[in-house]
C-alpha cells in the first residue's frame, strides 16, 4: 500500500478525476470571470479590454458598497443565530421527551427549496391579507408595517425565513456533535455533582468547539454569497434596501447587460469572502490547534 502511494503516477491517477472536475467546474470559470472583469462586454457582442476600469467603478459604486453592507449584516445575524441553534441542540440532545420528533420538525424547512420558502413567506408578509399582519391587527395593532416594502425593515423581515430555513441544518450538525460526546464524561461530571448548566458549559461546549468553529465559517461564507431567497422575495428592493452582493452582481450582469462589470463584482465578492474567511479562521483558531497546521 505504501509503495503504491509513493508512486507519483499513482498519486496523479487517483487525484486526476476530482482535480479535473474541480478545474473545469470551479477554477477555470473563476479565472475566466476574473478575466471578464477586465473587459467592457455586454455578454453578447464584442469584448473590449479596459484594464482595471470595472474594478475602479466597483470601488466607487455606492450601490455596490451598500450591497456589501447588507451582506455583512446578514453574515452577522447568521453568526449570532448559531447561538440560538446551539441552545436548541443542547436541549434536544439532553434526551428530553419527544426530542426525536422535535428534531425532525426543525429539519423540515431544510427540505423545502428556497423558492418555495420565499413564496410561503411572501404570503405571510402580505401587508393586507398576510398571516403576520392579520395577527397583528387582531391583537390591536392598527397599522402594522408593510414588511417587504419598508426599506428600513425589509432586511430584517427577510432574515426571519433565512433563520428558519437553516435551523434544521445547524441543529442537525450540533446534535450529531453533542451525541458524539462520550456518555461516560457527562456521567462522571454528574457524579461529581455538576449542575446541568455546568455540564453544558464546562463539558459539552468545549468538546464541540471544533464543530462550532466550522459552522461559524459556514454560516458567514454562506450568508455573504446568499442570493436565491432574496431574489425571489424582493428582487433586492425596494430601492436596493435588500440588495446583497450576489443579487447585485446578478442584476448588473443579467439585467443591465454589463457582463464585464458583473464579473468584476463577482471577483470582488470572492476576494471579500476569502478575506473574511481568513480573518474568521484566524480569530477562532486557538493556540493548540495552531500547532497542528
Amino acid at each position, binding site marked *: 500500500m505504501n509503495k503504491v502511494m509513493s508512486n507519483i503516477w499513482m498519486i496523479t491517477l487517483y487525484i486526476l478525476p476530482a482535480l479535473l472536475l474541480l478545474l473545469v467546474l470551479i477554477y477555470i470559470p473563476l479565472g475566466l470571470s476574473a478575466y471578464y472583469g477586465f473587459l467592457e462586454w*455586454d*455578454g*453578447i*457582442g*464584442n469584448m473590449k479590454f479596459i484594464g482595471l476600469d470595472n474594478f475602479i467603478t466597483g470601488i466607487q459604486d455606492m450601490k455596490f458598497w451598500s450591497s456589501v453592507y447588507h451582506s455583512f449584516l446578514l453574515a452577522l445575524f447568521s453568526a449570532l443565530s448559531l447561538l440560538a441553534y446551539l441552545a436548541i441542540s443542547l436541549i434536544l440532545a439532553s434526551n428530553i421527551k419527544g426530542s426525536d420528533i422535535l428534531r425532525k420538525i426543525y429539519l423540515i424547512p431544510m427540505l423545502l427549496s428556497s423558492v418555495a420558502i420565499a413564496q410561503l413567506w*411572501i404570503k405571510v*408578509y*402580505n*401587508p*393586507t391579507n398576510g398571516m403576520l399582519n392579520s395577527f397583528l391587527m387582531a391583537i390591536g395593532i392598527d397599522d402594522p408595517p*408593510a*414588511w*417587504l*416594502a*419598508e*426599506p428600513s425593515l*425589509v432586511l430584517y423581515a427577510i432574515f426571519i425565513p433565512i433563520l428558519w430555513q437553516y435551523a434544521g441544518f445547524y441543529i442537525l450538525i450540533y446534535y450529531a456533535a453533542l451525541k458524539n460526546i462520550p456518555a461516560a464524561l457527562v456521567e462522571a461530571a454528574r457524579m461529581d455533582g455538576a449542575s446541568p448548566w455546568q455540564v453544558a458549559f464546562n463539558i459539552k461546549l468545549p468538546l464541540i468547539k471544533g464543530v462550532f468553529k466550522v459552522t461559524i465559517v459556514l454560516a458567514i461564507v454562506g450568508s455573504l454569497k446568499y442570493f436565491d431567497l432574496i431574489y425571489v422575495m*424582493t*428582487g433586492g*428592493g*425596494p*430601492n*436596493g434596501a435588500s440588495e446583497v452582493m450576489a443579487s447585485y452582481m446578478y*442584476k448588473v450582469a*443579467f*439585467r*443591465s*447587460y*454589463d*457582463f464585464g462589470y458583473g464579473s468584476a463584482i463577482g471577483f470582488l465578492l470572492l476576494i471579500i469572502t476569502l478575506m473574511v474567511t481568513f480573518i474568521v479562521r484566524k480569530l477562532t483558531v486557538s493556540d493548540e490547534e495552531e500547532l497542528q497546521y
Partner: protein
Amino acid sequence: MKKLKALSLLLALTLAAAGCGSSNQAEKDPAGSGGTKTIKFMHLWPEGTNAPQNKILNEIIADFERENPGIKIEQEILANEQYKDKIKVLSASNQLPDVGMAWPGGWLQPYVEGNKIASFDDVIDRDYRNKFVDGTIEAFEVDGKTYGLPTDLNIAIVYYNKRIFEQNGLNVPTTYDEFLHVISTLTNNGITPIALGNQERWTGSLWYMYLADRISGNETIVNAVNRKQSFEDPTLIRAAEEIQRLVDLGAFQKGYNGATSSEAESLFTSGQAAMYLTGTWVLPSFTQGENFTQEFKDSVDYFKFPTVEGGKGDINSFVGGNGGLFVSEHSTVKEEAKRFVKYFTEKFGERALGEAGIIPSYKLNADDYDLPELYLKVLKDLNDASSITLFADNIMTPGPAQVHLDMIQSLFGKEATPEEFVKAHEEALAKEAGE
C-alpha cells in the same frame, strides 16, 4: 441493517429518477438524423399558464410540419425571466436556438450589434408588411433592417371595478382632475383605489410612462433616449411629481413597493382594489379565466388613461409593445427557420384572437369575431389609436432601462425626488451614448 437497506433503496430511487431525467434528454436530440432537419424553438407559452397560446402554437407547428416534410420543430419552454437569462448565456457561446421569442428596442439591440440574430428582409415583402398593424414590424428594425417578426400586441389600460365605482357614485374619469377626484373619494370611503405590484418595477413604470405621455407628449422620452434632447425636461419632472402626488394621496395599496404583480392582480380581482393598470395580456383570463369569479368578470371594465389639462398627449395614445420571433444568425437551418417564423406569425395573426383571445399585431376586423364586449372595446380603441409609446424597457437599452426601473421604485417609495429621478435618467442615457 434495516436502515442500511432503506438507505440503499432511497439511493436507488434517486438514481432512477436521475436516469429518467437524462433519458428524456436523449430522446429529443436526434438533430439532423435520418435526413430530417430540426428547428429548435424556444418560447414561453407553457401549457399550464398559457393554455390557449400553447394550443394554437402546437397546432401551427403541426400544420407546418405536415406541409414541410423533413422539417421537425423541437420546442423548449421556459418562464419569462429564465428565458431571458438563458438566451443571453446561450448567445455568448453562439448556441442560440434557431427560433426564439424577441422583444423590440432595448432587448433586441445588443443581439443585433453582436451579430447574433438574422434579418428577415430577404423573406418579407410589402404584402406581408401590410398584414400587420403599423409600427409593429418597424419596432423590430435596427438600422433599417428587420430582425424580428411580430406575434402578439399589448397595450396598457386602466382596468376598473364597475361595481365599486357604482357603489361610490363615481364616473369613469377622462381627465386627470376627475381621476384625482376618483382617488380621493375612494380613499375617503376606505377603499384602496389602485392595486400596484411595484416589486417588479415595470408595473410602476407604466404609470410613469402614461403620465409622461399625457403631460409631455409621446415624443419626449423617445427623443431623450435618442439624445435629441435632455431627460431633465420640466414636463418629465412634472410627470414624476404627479407620481408622488398619487403616492401622497394614498392611491396605491399598502406595501405596493414590495408587492409582486400577481399579488396586486389578486387584490384587484378579489374586489379589494378599484383600479389596476396593466397590459391587455390579462384579457383572456379576466373575461374567460377559470380562476376568477363570475362576479368579477361581470364587474371588470377599463378606461383609457385620462388626459392631463394643459398636457400635450391625447387620450387615444397608448403605452404598449409587441412581442415577436427571431432567427439565430448562426443557425444551421436558417432558411427553414425564417420560413417557419414567417409562416408562424401569419397563422398566429389569423388565429390568435378568435381561438385564444390574444390580440395579435396582425390587422383584424373586430366584427368577424364573437368576443366578449371588453375585447371589442379594446380592438376598437386600438384601431383609433393615435400612437403607441413603447414600454420603457423596450425604448431604452438594458443599462439605462435598469436605472429607469430602479429609479421608479425610489420615486414611488419617495426615496428620490422628481429632480433626482430625471437626473439619474439623464446621466445613464448620456453615459450609454458615450457623451
